[in-house]
């Protein structure tokens, strides 16, 4: 009897926690389908009287949010593809190629993890300005093309690739690049998937650097566009909720589709997403 009461209590707590967690997201979704002004009428209601796509139409037709969506997609996809290649090459070298000072160099990279990115942002902006990359997609992409966490994640995985396998390929006369491409990369598929999701989400959600380096409205990413819309449309609750849906939905969908390898990767590497 006591055990039963405990089980009921446990599930009540789980469900209550879930409701509190999901409420802001569900309300966002619901309010985005309301007509203008509906979220601020009395008596309050949580579900739209007559669902409408009016807010989305406004966002894309009048406020050009589609352009921000494309900016975000371009930056996130390019960053993900290139950084997978660059990080995996470095991670492989740190795990499986022998060279002098390897451990010391890797230790130096790891130590850099506690330096917050903001410390370098002011000179980084001046550097981008000197390279004429301010206000370009490359200005937003380049700094994220390699990450210590990504290299670390790949290296940990590569350590489990048996050295004999690589030696065998070498004896057969395969060059280092061939070994990396045809032997190592296929084996590393799971960790590459994890890293791809991590990178995509981090880049998609990133705010401070795009805010600094992209000053032209036409190049704003979704988070930057949202932050600037808040200023002008602070009272258009339904419109802002539709904007939030457009911003959040892609990452949420990617997460739900691939969550198993994502969460497994987090637990294995304990890396910040």
């Amino acid at each position, binding site marked *: 009897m006591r055990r039963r009461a405990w089980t009921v209590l446990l599930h009540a707590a789980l469900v209550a926690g879930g409701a509190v967690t999901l409420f802001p997201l569900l309300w966002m979704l619901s*309010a985005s389908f309301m007509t203008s002004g509906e979220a601020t009428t009395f008596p309050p209601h949580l579900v739209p009287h007559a669902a409408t796509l009016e807010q989305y139409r406004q966002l894309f037709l009048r406020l050009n949010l589609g352009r921000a969506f494309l900016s975000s997609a371009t930056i996130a996809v390019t960053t993900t593809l290139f950084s997978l290649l660059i990080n995996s090459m470095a991670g492989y070298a740190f795990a499986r190629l022998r060279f002098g000072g390897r451990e010391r160099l890797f230790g130096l990279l790891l130590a850099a993890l506690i330096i917050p990115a903001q410390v370098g942002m002011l000179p980084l902006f001046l550097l981008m300005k000197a390279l004429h990359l301010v206000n370009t997609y490359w200005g937003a992409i380049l700094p994220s093309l390699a990450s210590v966490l990504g290299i670390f994640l790949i290296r940990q995985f590569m350590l489990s690739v048996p050295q004999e396998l690589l030696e065998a390929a070498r004896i057969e006369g395969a060059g280092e690049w061939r070994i990396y491409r045809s032997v190592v990369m296929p084996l590393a598929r799971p960790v590459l998937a994890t890293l791809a999701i991590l990178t995509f989400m981090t880049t998609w959600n990133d705010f401070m650097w795009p805010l600094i380096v992209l000053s032209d409205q036409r190049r704003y990413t979704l988070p930057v566009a949202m932050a600037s819309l808040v200023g002008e449309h602070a009272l258009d609750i339904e419109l802002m909720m539709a904007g*939030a849906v457009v911003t959040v939905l892609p990452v949420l969908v990617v997460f739900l589709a691939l969550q198993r390898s994502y969460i497994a990767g987090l637990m294995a590497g304990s890396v910040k997403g």
Partner: protein
Amino acid sequence: MRNEARAAALFLAPALAVLGLFFFLPVVAGFALSLTDFDLYTLGDFHALRFVALHNYAAVLRSSLFWTALGNTLYFSLVGGPLTVAVSLGAALLVNARAARFKPLFRTVYFAPVVTTLVAVAVVFRFLYHPRFGAIDRALVGLGLPAIDWLGDPRWAMPAIILLAVWKNFGYNMIIFLAGLQAIPEELYEAARIDGAGAFRQFRHVTLPMLGPTFLFVGIVTAIGYLQLFPEPYVMTYGGPLNRTLSAVMLMYKEGFRWWRMGYASAVAFLLCLVIAAATALQMRWQERR
């Protein structure tokens, strides 16, 4: 063997070039910048740049706005950090409970806020906190409590931001705690039960000590992240009301990219860096002592 070293150099070159050029160089340059009077005029004419030694640091440390920002950042981190860790641990214990069903479902639901875009959910919370129409105040009024002007009241703006941060981040730490909980050998609990320990004492004397390293990791990651508070106040309050939510990074952003006082802003950034290093070292020392 020499062949391998040469291959390694080629494999490492792109990553080291990116990290060197876009991370290490700016960090070093940032320190140099903090020793200069780089401002709006210098931006137009580099020859106007002057070396001012530690003058910026002295100016920052004398500025009351800096201490306000640092105080706000510490308030956010010292209240929000432990609160987030506590909620994370609670959620992990619930999801991990032996009697719990639908574990993957709850795990996914609790984790969902972590992957959302901070700016977007900050916009959502801005409206949830609305004193007249927001769901939170409606619930408060429904319970017979007074409504709170969350983002307009200097006393409540920071707690409002803390609640958003807890909601957004607890799922991440929960996953790390789950990994830690699942690594505790079942025999330890059995031995405790044989010794007559109830659920609470098992938690106190088995679970908590065994989670020591997990606490350290979660604590350090949370502290580093929270001390860099920026998008939440940027979107919800822009540092207001009365600078009560102005964070250290936000001060750096305003000084550096709004007023172009880049030498001064760099000094702010490095002082924050020192605080972060101190917070990390303190937690490591504390863990070692126990």
